[in-house]
């Protein structure tokens, strides 16, 4: 399903707030690597915050307004589907979409509230995560053909966290033992390592006011990757990335035996393997610099 030489495929792309702030490396590596795959990503016009968390209370319809407004914008872009890379955005947008498709009363209330919008939402947009787009629309075998610099010898621990695999209705892979990222990085030439902590929570928003919890989580999760002799950990969530990368000094204070390990977005490994330049990688935005590790493997 790759675009031919004359006509690249077009895909509406929802970046989300953090990809325009701390996670600009996730944004630029996504756009650059998709261009290498002949997919033209078009940033959704007038997108707004997804809401970040799906309210778990049955009566909180107000928190569905932000995600549904984005689904309206996708319709206004004449599209019936769109792609996002941030695990939090994906989860929140997808769950709101599933709910309004199931519950006509909730959808009606939201459309009534958004009465000034010219477009009504009717449950007619699909939410895709980039990983499932790569697997199902491009195919990892086709993706492997685009690799210019195979990531040979690079040992990678793939971290999924919570939001790509839970709850089951949003998961595009096995809830307990997902392997989609391992399959992707194998196509890029890297070696996935076993990673028992791959779906363990990083502590999420406790990073705001309970950093001691994040230190404990980071120590356990990164410690597990270290035990498997991983060179680095890849993620798809900017909050996981922040906690596992920027809280490593706290983990070191908690556990003097803690070893620092770089944390990258899976899109950065794609951009690296596709031969994109440094502006597509933005390693300057990391706390633990990945460059010495990559250089040791002849990749930087």
């Amino acid at each position, binding site marked *: 399903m790759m675009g031919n030489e004359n006509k690249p495929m077009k895909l509406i792309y929802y970046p989300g707030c953090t990809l325009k702030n701390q996670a600009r490396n996730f944004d630029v590596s996504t756009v650059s690597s998709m261009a290498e795959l002949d997919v033209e990503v078009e940033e959704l016009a007038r997108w707004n915050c997804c809401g970040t*968390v799906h309210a778990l209370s049955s009566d909180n319809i107000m928190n569905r307004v932000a995600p549904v407004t984005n689904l309206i914008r996708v319709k206004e872009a004449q599209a019936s589907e769109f792609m996002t890379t941030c695990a939090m955005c994906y989860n929140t947008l997808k769950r709101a979409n599933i709910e309004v498709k199931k519950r006509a009363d909730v959808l009606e209330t939201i459309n009534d509230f958004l009465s000034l919008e010219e477009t009504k939402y009717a449950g007619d947009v699909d939410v895709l995560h980039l990983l499932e787009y790569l697997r199902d629309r491009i195919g990892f075998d086709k993706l492997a053909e685009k690799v210019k610099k195979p990531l040979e010898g690079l040992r990678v621990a793939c971290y999924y966290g919570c939001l790509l695999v839970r709850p089951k209705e949003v998961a595009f892979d096995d809830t307990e033992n997902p392997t989609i990222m391992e399959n992707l990085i194998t196509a890029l030439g890297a070696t996935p390592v076993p990673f028992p902590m791959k779906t363990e*929570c990083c502590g999420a928003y406790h990073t705001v006011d309970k950093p001691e919890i994040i230190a404990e989580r980071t120590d356990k999760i990164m410690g597990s990757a270290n035990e498997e002799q991983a060179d680095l950990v890849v993620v798809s969530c900017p909050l996981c990335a922040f906690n596992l990368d920027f809280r490593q000094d706290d983990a070191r204070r908690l556990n003097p035996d803690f070893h620092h390990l770089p944390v990258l977005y899976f899109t950065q490994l794609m951009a690296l393997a596709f031969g994109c330049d440094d502006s597509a990688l933005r390693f300057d935005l990391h706390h633990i610099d990945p460059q010495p590790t990559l250089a040791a493997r002849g990749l930087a």
Partner: protein
Amino acid sequence: MNTTLHISSARLGDPFVAQIEKISGQNLLACYQCGKCSAGCPMAAHMDVLPNQVIRLAQLGMREQLLAARSIWICVSCLTCNSRCPKDIKIAEIFEALRQTVLRGGNRADHLEIRELTPEARGALPPIAMISALRKQTS
């Protein structure tokens, strides 16, 4: 916390129990206390009342103990418990209902003091961290 409970059948039909069931959309009595939720909970080490104990206290209508528990603010809705519960009870939704009961209580009872953070600390945090923390812990 005090581990002695004075159980009375009078509390079983308590409006508090009905409210938790309504907000969470869950049937509390479906739980048979297997403990799988607590066994897999990544936050259990930081909790004063374990998830299966929270469900038991909720079944019994122990309102004061539950609403004062640190645990309800420690749960980050990772949904590991939900995905493993053999009775398909959404335990995280019950924790959300307990937080909401506190936050909707009439007196402003925010559990996050954002102004206590320095401007530097606030500036370093990703937007998704700030927004999710505020959405979960303030009204």
